């Protein structure tokens, strides 16, 4: 009497056991998934995103500061001011009158293209970055043929409420002479 009864009980418990075994497997899966999610280095991810933003903004700003439409000088100067911040911004504002006179007399247009650029330093806490950029500039005088110049820059960036802006822009000099 006890033997078949035990067998029956075991049999009857089987679906439940299987269901709980399934729960166990699901717990394992969820735990593994959660662990792999938590294992993601959020700081590294944020840092990588900031690096890419700094590079994208920096490239655009360097391009803007190397471009000028001889027919729309005021607009160009405004763009220069908008692309810059800090000391560079102050300097551009201070010299904007002189720049306007010079550009108005020459009516030269310039079209800058960043051919390659790289972030060389990034401090997300301070909101500062440094990039290097290789720039090709097509210079078109008012009455003349366009010529192409190559320049290489090192630029300091500062993070502002409207993205990364240039706070310094210097040509990297050639040494070794």
């Amino acid at each position, binding site marked *: 009497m006890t033997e078949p009864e035990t067998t029956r009980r075991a049999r009857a418990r089987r679906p*439940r056991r299987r269901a709980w075994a399934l*729960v166990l497997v699901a717990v394992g899966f*969820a735990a593994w998934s959660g662990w*792999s999610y938590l294992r993601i280095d959020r700081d590294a991810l944020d840092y990588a995103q900031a690096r890419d933003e700094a590079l994208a903004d920096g490239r655009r700003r360097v391009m803007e500061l190397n471009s000028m439409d001889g027919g729309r000088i005021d607009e160009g100067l405004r763009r220069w001011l908008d692309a810059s911040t800090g000391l560079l911004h102050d300097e551009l504002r201070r010299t904007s009158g002189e720049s306007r006179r010079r550009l108005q007399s020459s009516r030269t247009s310039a079209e800058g293209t960043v051919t390659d650029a790289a972030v*060389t330093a990034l401090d997300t806490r301070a909101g500062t970055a440094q990039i290097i950029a290789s720039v090709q500039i097509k210079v078109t005088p008012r009455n003349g043929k366009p010529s192409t110049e190559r320049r290489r820059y090192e630029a300091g960036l500062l993070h502002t409420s409207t993205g990364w802006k240039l706070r310094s822009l210097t040509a990297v000099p*050639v040494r*070794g*002479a």
Partner: protein
Amino acid sequence: MGTERTTPVGAGARTEDHPAGTATATDRSPEADAMAGAAGPTAEKAPVGGDPNPVPARPGRRRPAGRLRQVRGPLRQVRGPLVIALALTLLGGAGMVRAEQLRGSPSAANRALVDTDATARVGGDVSDALTKIFTYSHENTAATERAARDLLAGNAYRQYSALFSQVKRQAPAQRLTVTTSVARVGVTRLSGGTARLLVFMDQRITRGGGNGASVAAAQLSVTARLQDGHWRIVDIRSS
């Protein structure tokens, strides 16, 4: 039928759905405890819930709770665990998808600057390599060629070989000496064993044995690949 007398209506209906002997293993109620006493020795193979003869042998052991549980079907008895399992699976799946989204983004895959050691290493290796292969003297072009075999691979090696064969022809007559140094280096991309860099170089060029050197700037976009623990340049483009 005696079933009508001793079991509630629901259980009676079930008996019709699953007549004894045709029910599958999963149909067998796990609530054997409640029914064990009632089943009797003749009901050995019959599914417990569909027992056609549930005359209680020991009525004292049948608790009201047991009778209530009897009402539920087998599916209802595993429904709780199944719901939990499903919820956990969905949760796990969502977590996995989100993790993959974060990890798989182009930003995350690029370790440039994020991995400071690796960034410094590739920058250093590539700078050293460029300095070596673009520094040569008309007196010793063979040493530079040997270095290039070590430091360059693929397309970069082919380009360099073509360029350097010209240099070798002209260098002795011009008494050409070129000294290259790296002014700036930036890593634009670093993922796995491949890196992209922007390098600013300075070159000091001397012709005719020293009187009057000229300097030149060169900007190169370089692709490098990690091979046997050190970075080899596989592509060089002027930028």
